[in-house]
């Protein structure tokens, strides 16, 4: 009996958590002839017309491609750049190591919203406003990822690299062949969260991009809402396009998502 109540409660929360997504999906599949205001979750005559339709009013596939491009570059830069820095901080001894570590620690404490305006000035002086490069750069190597990977490298036992050192392998060879493969788990977490942050980011692309052709999905959708607010079916189709890839990724790799939260990869 107590189990019954537990499941009833679970189903109630389930409805609240994914009901809104399902309602959006349902709206996106409803044809022009169906009243979208009626509280009916099952479309009378499901159609994909809205997915084609949204591409007629805004270049939604260009937005998606831009988002994908930005996210992939972000993942590669973060995995490689943060791992390199993390490796140096954890496994190499040199003067100035503490100072370098402090720089990354300080960067974590800077809330992005507070540097929004002056970061825009930096991008403008580099001539990178309204470019996808300008979107990627500020988060290309996140300080948080550097420290996550530093901790992962620190946790490796010292002997791991000794044999390689005796064999005369240099630091780069040891990094690529021994250290990097040993922190695969953390790299997956970093990759996943870099992808998600980049794909979901809104405030920075909104500031730095001005040309609709360069828009990423998030600001493209906000733009769509502003221009074609009346047609809920199209907005719904656009949101499903934006959220479906992430949900898929999440379902495939959920274990790593939960681990990432545990390791503090996601700041909420």
């Amino acid at each position, binding site marked *: 009996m107590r189990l019954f109540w537990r499941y009833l409660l679970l189903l109630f929360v389930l409805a609240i958590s994914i009901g809104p997504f399902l309602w959006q999906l349902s709206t996106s599949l409803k044809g022009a002839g169906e009243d979208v205001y009626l509280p009916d979750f099952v479309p009378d005559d499901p159609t994909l017309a809205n997915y084609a339709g949204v591409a007629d009013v805004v270049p939604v596939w260009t937005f998606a491609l831009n988002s994908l491009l930005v996210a992939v570059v972000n993942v590669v830069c973060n995995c490689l750049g943060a791992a390199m820095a993390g490796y140096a901080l954890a496994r190499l001894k040199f003067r100035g190591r503490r100072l370098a570590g402090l720089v990354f620690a300080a960067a974590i404490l800077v809330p992005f919203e507070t540097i*929004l*305006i002056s970061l825009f000035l930096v991008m403008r002086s580099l001539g990178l406003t309204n470019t996808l490069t300008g979107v990627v750069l500020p988060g290309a190597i996140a300080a948080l990822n550097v420290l996550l990977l530093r901790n992962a490298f620190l946790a490796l036992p010292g002997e791991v690299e000794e044999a390689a050192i005796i064999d005369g392998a240099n630091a780069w060879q040891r990094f690529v062949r021994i250290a990097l493969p040993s922190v695969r788990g953390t790299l997956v977490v970093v990759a996943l969260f870099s992808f998600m942050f980049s794909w979901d980011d809104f405030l920075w692309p909104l500031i730095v991009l001005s040309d609709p052709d360069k828009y990423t999905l998030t600001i493209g959708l906000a733009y769509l809402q502003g221009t074609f607010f009346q047609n809920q079916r199209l907005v719904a189709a656009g949101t499903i396009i934006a*959220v479906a890839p992430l949900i898929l990724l999440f379902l495939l790799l959920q274990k790593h998502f939960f681990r990432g939260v545990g390791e503090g990869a996601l700041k909420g």
Partner: protein
Amino acid sequence: MTHRPHTPWLFLLPGLAVVLMFSIFPFLNMIVLAFTDADALGGGQFTGVDNFVRMVDDPKFWVAARNSTLYLFGVVPPLVLLPLLLALLVRRQVPGITFFRTAFFTPVIASAVVVGLIWTWLLDSRGLVNSVVEALGGARIPFLTDSSLLLVSAMAVTVWKGMGYYMVIYLAALANVPNDLHEAAQVDGAGPIRRFVSVTVPALRPTMVLVAALSAVNGFRVFAEVYLLSGGSGGPGGASTTLVMLIQQTGTGLTGEVGYASALSLVLFVVTLGLLLITLRLNRKEDLL
């Protein structure tokens, strides 16, 4: 020696370059700009504390500061409590629990924009929520057109989106609560509510403080939810504008007042830092007790 002296710096170069150019420098520059009258083109003259004097007399600043503060107080209590209850609900390994945990986490991975658009549609004057309200015999609620309700709606969206994340944090913490305490309390005849208040909550206090800190800092910096629910306008007459929205509106565009926006950013930073320090203080007291 296992490496040449300059090798570590080659490893650090990309990371340090990005962090110094795109975090540390803009941050320091923001502090300098806050005391200037720099406009959209940058530059500007040193004007002392003029920007802060102007802020005190700026009704827009007070509206935004009030809204961000209200937001903080609105989202922290539910985000500390509800995810904890959720964690207790999904803690037991009953069949299908992985499915439920996964589903409860889904709102976390969706972007604030997607979430904002979904809820804009749900809370529309003729949307699904109002259909239900009407079916139950109530009158339609102007969730998005009344400036106070807009803010409350956005808070609800923030809570909805954040619950799964904090649930996972609580789950990890719950795994460390010794079970024998519970059993001892049960033997002493304590009911589930009593056990929750006297065993679970004290054991989880540090985690609850952490969750409070994270949700407070994030709540005070709210942007996307309010921006999306108000269609970018900040509500009727801008009455639901938040501090970050004000920074964005003030500092960008051809008429951007970079100096004043930087001063607003500095205020945002000081408050954020203050919230973190308070939390550290609270957690240190824990250790002493």
